[in-house]
């Protein structure tokens, strides 16, 4: 009888042993193979150049396609495939000339007609809202085209220049699946392996049309091969690092790097201020208690302990906000930082609650994506302390998408909104004409609307006007900037930077640094 038990044990042992034997011979990707392995938590599902806004700023796009221009460190538009451009007096029509020697990896010569075709296709597919702002476009000569905007809203041109990818029409049309699994681009890098949503690899090609030396550091590829690994389950990123599957990750959150922060011997963790910040938006839908109750909204803002959020949610690694948007935005005024911005004050909050029409029993719904439900949990607790009842409503992504613009489904909405210019954020959130339901939370505040329209033209984008919007948003507590979470860039100490790049963090894309030991 015992024999059998012991035989089972033996079998298990043998199995384990043989498994470990199979396992020998190296796990993961070894460092030293000349490939920089990067972790991302969500990646390319397809290689098509026609993509939606989600993940727009992911740096792998700069390795996949080339655009007409790009934003450099200082948030200035810098030419890339475009050689030069000019603008008409009304700031509506732009004339762009591209380089005449642009060839993609399949040898197709890129002309202005390819660019116009791309614009047409992008407008057609309506994937990126910025293309909706185009009135017309036309080819002027072989390397020149012009495009006219519907309005001269600030930042639209810069966006367009970054979002128009350079793709050969002929190559695209020759592809059976619209570049879904294989693409041809003009980039220095060529994708040599692609498994959708899993991993993909870039290799520098020798026949790049331009001179890499002419490119700015941000986009100049130096690392010979870069491989991206999608690790959808963020808690496994640490394991991926520990097993040498990946050596580098940028844009990581504190959850991902918290263990590596404690292990400076093995990992270098760099942090930088986040680009988006966390905001609290109040529902503008009439039935919501907060919709027409400034006092209640202000009470909520006072009740929130921002420092506690930074400590509780970001483990202390974050910064306060003085506007709905963080300082990353173009148009941000440093003078705001000396202003009073709903500093945590429970007494004041209680007073305001008492003055408000809040009945003290209605439980308010805080809508938040599952990634940020902790923030909502903390806020629920803080609101409870001043006598405001609230509950977390954290549905799966698809449902969230379906209801986020409809303020009847929630009273508050926590989100992070990204952009380059403050009007990017404003137009998405507070323009009462933006959506069928009103603004981003079903509000119809035309006073605010007018202020926005005045501010976001190229001429109207003045400090004075900006301050007006800022003050309106602040005084009426339309939305509230909660905190800004730091982002992290982490790499294994088995890698070393040969050339320290100035202000390395995030401004430097992985491919553009010189790594040794990869």
């Amino acid at each position, binding site marked *: 009888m015992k024999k059998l038990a012991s035989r089972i044990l033996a079998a298990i042992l043998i199995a384990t042993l043989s498994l470990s034997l199979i396992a020998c011979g190296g796990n993961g990707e070894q460092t030293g193979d000349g490939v920089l392995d990067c972790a991302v938590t969500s990646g390319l599902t397809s290689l098509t150049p026609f993509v*939606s806004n989600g993940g727009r700023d992911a740096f792998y796009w700069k390795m996949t396609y080339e655009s007409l221009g790009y934003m450099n460190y200082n948030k200035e538009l810098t030419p890339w495939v475009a050689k030069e451009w000019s603008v008409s007096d009304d700031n509506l029509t732009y004339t762009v000339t591209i380089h005449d020697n642009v060839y993609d990896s399949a040898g197709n010569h890129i002309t202005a007609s390819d660019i116009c075709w791309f614009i047409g296709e992008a407008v057609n597919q309506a994937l990126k809202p910025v293309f909706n702002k185009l009135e017309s476009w036309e080819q002027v000569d072989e390397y020149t085209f012009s495009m006219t905007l519907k309005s001269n809203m600030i930042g639209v041109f810069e966006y367009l220049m970054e979002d128009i990818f350079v793709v050969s029409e002929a190559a695209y049309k020759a592809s059976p699946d619209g570049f879904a699994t294989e693409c041809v681009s003009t980039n220095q890098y060529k994708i040599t392996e692609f498994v959708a949503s899993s991993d993909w690899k870039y290799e520098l090609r020798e026949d790049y049309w331009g001179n890499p030396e002419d490119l700015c550091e941000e986009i100049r590829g130096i690392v010979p091969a870069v491989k991206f690994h999608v690790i959808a389950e963020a808690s496994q990123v640490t*394991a991926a690092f520990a097993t040498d599957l990946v050596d580098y990750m940028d844009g990581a959150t504190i959850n991902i790097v918290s263990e590596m922060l404690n292990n400076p011997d093995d990992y270098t963790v760099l942090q930088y201020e986040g680009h988006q910040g966390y905001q609290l938006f109040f529902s503008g839908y009439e039935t919501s208690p907060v919709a027409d109750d400034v006092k209640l909204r202000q009470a909520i803002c006072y009740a929130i302990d921002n420092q506690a959020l930074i400590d509780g949610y970001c483990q202390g690694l974050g910064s306060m906000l003085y506007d709905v948007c963080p300082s990353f935005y173009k148009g941000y005024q440093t003078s705001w930082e000396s202003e009073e911005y709903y500093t945590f004050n429970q007494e004041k909050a209680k007073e305001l609650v008492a003055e408000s029409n809040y009945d003290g029993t209605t439980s308010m719904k805080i809508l938040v994506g599952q990634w940020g439900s902790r923030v909502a949990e903390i806020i629920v607790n803080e609101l409870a302390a001043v006598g405001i009842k609230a509950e977390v409503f954290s549905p799966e992504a698809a449902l969230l998408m*379906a209801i986020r613009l409809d303020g009847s489904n929630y009273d508050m909405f926590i989100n992070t909104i990204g952009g380059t210019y403050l009007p990017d954020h404003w137009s998405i959130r507070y323009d009462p004409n933006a959506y069928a339901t009103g603004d981003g939370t079903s509000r119809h505040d035309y006073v605010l609307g007018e202020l926005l329209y005045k501010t976001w033209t190229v001429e109207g984008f003045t400090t004075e006007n900006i301050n007006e919007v800022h003050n309106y948003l602040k005084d009426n507590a339309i939305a509230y900037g909660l905190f800004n979470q730091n982002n992290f860039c982490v790499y294994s100490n088995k890698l070393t930077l040969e050339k320290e790049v100035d202000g390395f963090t995030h401004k430097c894309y992985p491919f553009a640094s010189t790594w040794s030991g990869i």
Partner: protein
Amino acid sequence: MGRYILKRILWMIPIILGVTVLVFTMMTICPGDPATIILGSLATEESLAAKRVELGLDQPYLTRLVKYLSDVYLHFNLGSSWISKISIVSELKVRLPRTLVLSLFTTALSFGLGIPFGISAAKNQGKWQDSLCMVIAMIGSSMPNFWLAMMLVLLFAVKLKWLPALGIGAGLAGLKYYILPAFSNFATGMASAARQTRSSMLDVIRSDYITTARAKGVPEKSVINKHALKNALIPIVTLMGTAFGNMLGGALIIETIFSIPGMGTYVIGAVGNRDYPVVQAGTIFLAIVFSIFMLLVDIVYAMIDPRIKALYTAGSKKKVKKEAKA
């Protein structure tokens, strides 16, 4: 036998059709708008409406259902993903094998370990070894598989560095990438295999023909391995079908943790993205795989039990009730 198999394969057609209709309907009921998900929440009403027309979502339910059924079953066209535009067939071709390997590996592991555990428990019925075997088997199945997965990664990949933590590899060496995922997911199957083995072994060991075998002077080892096991295997084989289904389901979650680009990450992601064509096609294929496995189980069943084989061969109308688990 051949006729029986053919009949079963033909019978799969209405079942798979039913599955298609079921999933299609459920996805239609699902809240969330695919157009919004594709275009992002910033899209204008017009472009959303245009997208819905492009996707055919403006059509009434029945029209869409009929169109989908005719696309799939008359034109054998599964379409492409709404999100990535990648042809679904080409994705299934690479993803299905990965999930299959994982599920089969897991099933093999759970029965490979569960059966000896069950035998050993049955042979020592009532003694401490019995309780020990069953408790060990059950403890495994008491842990959520995702939790076990993370623990195993921590131990075997991060601490001991024996096995890769994530991803997939190519060729035969790539199999090692499936070891931890399989071990994370095998416990439930192993517990039920052990449980089933124990009870059917107990049943069988008490049967008269086992006494007959002993009375013939058959050595104890052969009594167990040759006489008892083969009979006890009959209900175990039946269980294997259900277990494989569970492994297939478990693989869906496990794949996410181990970043395996298989059916799980594909279909679960598609459910989240309301990528109807992918969910539907993925489900249909998982159901086909499952049904084929069930058919194989039935064939193995017939190979072990001549009585069942006789029934099949006779083309008996009533299938033997295999659901009747002990």
